[in-house]
């Protein structure tokens, strides 16, 4: 049997995603990709993968996965609970923001995602799945991507590219990633001239709330209506993730990764790339507001963010137990080959 993770209990909605399917929008093909690209990049870094490799994006409640491989290294980034079930042992919680090395037969129960729309799980070496149009992102609406472009289903085997975990200790991020706070930053336009002065001022000062219609395609926002100067309709033109379009009812829609490639509503502003991960993490009921920056400012913010991400990845270090005793250094790798892995088991306090 080829190495795999097998879905033994289905969660609510999990899809394979990478950083998006670019290059086919001229055919009307949406980009899709991870709603929280920062989580995917960091999860990949934790297991030693290139940052853009495809991982599992988990919304609401994750699946339970059985390790059908000699071993596998995994890492989750995001607000998700995880439990490891290993034969003959009590279930133990696994923390996100660090890697864990699992053994054949282990069951990884991915639990509730709470505090953001999604969390990301990466596996060392990635999944052995065939890209569709150059990408492993899943566009569920049209069934495009690996697994027929659909979410995970009961019994799915996710083939692993690596037949076993890499050498070396498990590692951790010293801190969870900092997504920033405050208003989402936007560049006005491309059609800001299709709105009244009052609407622009309202857009940049009012409090909005994510409505109940929120999915991978976009977030309908609730707040004061934004008045158009004339019609809300324009000749359909290209959209990006982060475009904020305003239909005739004046209620903005913040477009996310599964957005259609072109649309005919005037767009008041665009969320800057450095804030897209924050936007992708929003859930129904979340409050948000907007602040305008120039393209040049957006570029500078993005450069600083990339430096910060490089810093976080550079600070990834071998896992240290909560007690402060560096068991890794004390015992070295030679003592941890038994069935009870006190260093890599993932509990906060080793069972000494």
């Amino acid at each position, binding site marked *: 049997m080829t190495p795999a993770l097998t879905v033994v209990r289905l969660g609510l909605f999990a899809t394979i995603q990478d950083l998006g399917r670019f*290059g086919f929008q001229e055919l*009307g093909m949406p980009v899709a990709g991870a709603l929280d690209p920062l989580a995917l990049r960091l999860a990949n870094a934790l297991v030693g993968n290139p940052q853009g490799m495809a991982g599992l994006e988990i919304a609401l409640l994750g699946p339970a996965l059985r390790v059908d491989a000699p071993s596998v290294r995994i890492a989750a980034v995001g607000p998700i609970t995880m439990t490891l079930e290993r034969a003959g042992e009590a279930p133990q919680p696994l923390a996100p923001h660090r890697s864990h090395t699992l053994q054949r037969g282990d069951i990884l129960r991915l639990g509730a995602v709470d505090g953001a729309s999604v969390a990301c799980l990466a596996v060392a070496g990635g999944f052995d799945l065939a890209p*569709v149009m150059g990408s492993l992102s899943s566009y569920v609406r*049209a069934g495009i991507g690996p697994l027929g472009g659909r979410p995970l289903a009961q019994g799915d085997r996710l083939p692993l590219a690596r037949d076993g975990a890499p050498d070396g200790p498990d590692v951790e991020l010293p801190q969870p990633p900092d997504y920033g706070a405050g208003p989402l930053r936007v560049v006005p336009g491309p059609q800001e001239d299709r709105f009244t002065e009052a609407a622009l001022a309202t857009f940049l000062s009012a409090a909005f709330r994510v409505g109940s219609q929120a999915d991978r395609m976009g977030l309908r926002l609730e707040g004061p209506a934004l008045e158009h100067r004339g019609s809300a309709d324009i000749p359909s*033109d290209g959209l990006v993730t982060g475009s904020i379009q305003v239909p005739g009812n004046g209620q903005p829609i913040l477009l996310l990764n599964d957005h*259609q490639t072109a649309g005919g509503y005037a767009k008041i502003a665009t969320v800057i790339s450095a804030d897209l991960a924050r936007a992708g993490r929003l859930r129904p009921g979340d409050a948000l507001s907007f602040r305008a920056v120039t*393209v040049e400012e957006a570029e500078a913010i993005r450069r600083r963010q990339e430096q910060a991400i490089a810093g976080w990845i550079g600070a990834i270090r071998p896992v240290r137990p909560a007690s402060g005793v560096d068991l890794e250094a004390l015992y070295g790798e030679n003592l941890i080959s038994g069935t009870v892995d006190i260093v890599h088991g993932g509990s906060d306090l080793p069972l000494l």
Partner: protein
Amino acid sequence: MEVRFTSSGDTAFNVEFGEAIDRAANARVMALHARLKAAPPPGLVETVPTFRSLLVVYDPVATGRREMQAAVEAALAGGGEAPAEGRRWRLPVCYDPDLGPDLAELADALGLTAERVVELHGSAEYFVYMLGFMPGFGYMGDLPAELDRPRRTEPRVRVPAGSVAVAGRLTTVYPWESPGGWHLIGRCPVPLYDGARRDPVLLAAGDRVRFDAIDRDLFDMITESADAGYLDPDSLRDVG
């Protein structure tokens, strides 16, 4: 005509050639699209042609707006690469009432008979201005002026895949079952999107399309052979 640059954040900008949906503006869009595709500036991710503007998508880590806009301005000034001549297609359509549930109502609203609507729809060669809305959805024009009618006020929640529809001066074939607000006048048995094909999307911007009325028997036959994977899309090319 003045070219206008507008911002879509820090990952894209639009190059606009006027406000109108017309062939001249679209030809400039497609020419710039072809040039940038043939010689992509460093950091270009892709370009997305629409009716009268080109979305230029770039990687803001690899490049920046200033450099990318300068490269696009140079491509605009440079000439050179002309868009390839689009392909010509003949797409069969069955206009039976159950497959085109809006045909009678549309004909009434236009003061025409259903037969005349069908005849007019089949009388023109349509230009694929752009794809969008969903993979493979082509915005084709121009519909004869006699058929000009705004979108339905109440969009449908479920439009069957293959539905042939009109709105304004445009016509389309829905590649997928989806919501939709256009008037449904018939059904095309040829999948506009088929993941099993080497090129899953049938149409491309710049292609030309004619519709041929077919009867129900032929519609069923083509549907069957398409379902079985026997339909060669090239058989629909009009090379004459």
